[in-house]
């Protein structure tokens, strides 16, 4: 029987059941139960992902795309199947549009190197936003240095939302590449990617979306977004570190030269002339992170099994709860109050440096991030050196919000 979508409301996340899937959540830190609120930095791994890594190494480990033996076939099948899982997860048109990389940073650098550098000339413009992570700024600065192109920055408003009025002015006929984050790691703001794509495509520019912070919170459909490249990291969506994804439109990938040479990316090698494999293999020189790709696929299946609609609804409640609880704390200011926002709460507390807040919370078992979050221009925009940041995931509960609020109160008492 085929069920029609939308007939049932999304099932709520059963937090207790989900928490039992993540072995590390049973850990005690400084004598207290772990409260993990640093999901923006990396997420924890469910048992199925940990088991998949172990199982691969215990039963299937071999190199891919070369051996004639059984294990090599098993490893190759699993690696290729992982690519199909990723394709379905982001609704790409073909698995050949999925390039496995080390992470978001490598994906962005790949596009900067192989797509942008050969095409850009002095006078061209690369547009980014004021809320980008350093990894979506520096590769473009390097591209500008190499090509003579100019970096243009769309500002954000006082809530941390993108200034769409300025975007309309700044994306123009000189724009060749627009590189935007989907969700700001420091502020939580969600960027209206589809509208940015519309502006960029009007002027013939390609759009790269940094999806590192988005994939575990919002359903990503690259065809619906309309962008040209989408990058994300496995470890921020409950998968292993060291594996990530670049999705690119087939014609764009096909037109891009290789960026690293080696095995697996060639068709034929001769000293006179070497010919290159088609995408995605053209961009996957050397033995890939086979176990990582398999683990990532298991993580994506895990997320799909719970459902991103349910996850988003759960996190929306957590965000509302955390926002309300934190705003009740005297001297606490939330940095990043955009209407459209993911479950990230960046904040400062009068008279207490974010590092000190982080240390006090850590003593109570609460893990948050403190600092500039690799987004120094964002900090400068708000006139601060850093913030404390709590970032929520599907396994966080209201009890975690309570622990966060209690920890901040402890810091306030200590610093009173």
């Amino acid at each position, binding site marked *: 029987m085929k069920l029609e979508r939308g007939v049932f409301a999304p099932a709520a996340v059963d937090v207790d059941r989900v928490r039992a899937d993540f072995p590390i959540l049973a850990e005690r830190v*400084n*004598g207290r139960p772990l409260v993990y609120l640093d999901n923006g930095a990396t997420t924890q791994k469910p048992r199925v992902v940990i088991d998949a890594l172990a199982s691969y190494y215990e039963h299937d480990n071999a190199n891919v795309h070369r051996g004639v033996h059984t294990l090599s076939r098993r490893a190759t099948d699993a690696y290729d199947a992982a690519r199909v899982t990723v394709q379905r997860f982001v609704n790409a048109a073909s698995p050949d549009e999925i390039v496995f990389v080390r992470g978001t940073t490598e994906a962005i650098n790949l596009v900067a190197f192989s797509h942008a550098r050969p095409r850009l000339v002095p006078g061209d413009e690369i547009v980014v936003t004021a809320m980008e992570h350093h990894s979506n700024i520096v590769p473009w600065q390097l591209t500008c240095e190499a090509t003579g192109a100019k970096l243009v920055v769309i500002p954000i408003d006082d809530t941390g939302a993108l200034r769409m009025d300025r975007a309309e002015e700044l994306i123009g006929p000189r724009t060749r590449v627009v590189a935007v984050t989907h969700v700001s790691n420091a502020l939580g703001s969600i960027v209206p990617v589809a509208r940015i794509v519309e502006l960029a495509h009007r002027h013939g520019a390609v759009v790269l979306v940094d999806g590192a912070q988005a994939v575990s919170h919002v359903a990503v459909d690259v065809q619906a977004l309309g962008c040209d490249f989408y990058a994300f990291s496995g470890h921020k969506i409950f998968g292993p570190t060291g594996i990530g994804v670049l999705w690119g439109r087939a014609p764009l990938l096909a037109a891009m030269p290789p960026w690293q040479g080696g095995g697996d990316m060639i068709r034929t090698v001769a000293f006179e002339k070497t010919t290159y494999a088609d995408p995605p293999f053209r961009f996957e020189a050397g033995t890939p992170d086979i176990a990582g790709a398999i683990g990532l696929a298991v993580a994506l299946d895990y997320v799909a099994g719970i459902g991103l609609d349910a996850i988003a609804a759960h996190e929306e409640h957590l965000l509302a709860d955390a926002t309300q609880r934190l705003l009740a704390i005297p001297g606490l200011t939330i940095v990043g109050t955009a209407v459209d926002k993911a479950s990230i709460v960046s904040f400062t507390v009068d*008279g*207490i*440096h*974010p*590092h*000190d807040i982080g*240390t*006090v919370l850590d*003593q109570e078992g609460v893990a948050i991030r*403190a*600092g*500039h979050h690799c987004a*120094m221009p964002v*900090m400068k925009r708000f006139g601060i*050196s*850093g913030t404390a940041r709590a970032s929520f995931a599907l396994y966080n509960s209201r009890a975690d919000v309570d622990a966060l609020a209690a920890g901040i109160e*402890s810091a306030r008492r*200590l*610093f009173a």
Partner: protein
Amino acid sequence: MSGDLRDLYQQLVFDHYKRPRNHHALDDATHHAEGHNPLCGDEVTVWLDVADDVVRNVGFEGGGCAIATASASLMTEAIKGRPVAEVQRIFDEFHRMVTGKENGAHGDLGKLEVLAGVREFPVRVKCATLAWHTLHAALERESKSVSTE
């Protein structure tokens, strides 16, 4: 609250965090250097007036967390009026104390010993040593900025 946390944040640390001493630039500085902690983005500038191999005056600007600011403030009190060679010895002793190297054994450091608890918090050692590395750079007349990385 844990004992370690009380050891880290002693009353004297709060006193120097909230009312840092010598927290200003020197007009007649002979040496200065800037330091930054890339982990958190904190920046500090240390100014020195050195004559006849004696640190006659010292000031600092910037700072950061309670540990970094208190350490900078206490540092200025500890080195003002001291011969440069003595300042170098205090730097070495302080470094041993907060990093726990050689079991943290160190000579008498007076008020600076209030920062000994830092060694139980390895991620905070860089906060405590930021001003000190900057002082070191200033004394060596390094014009470039230093980083705790």
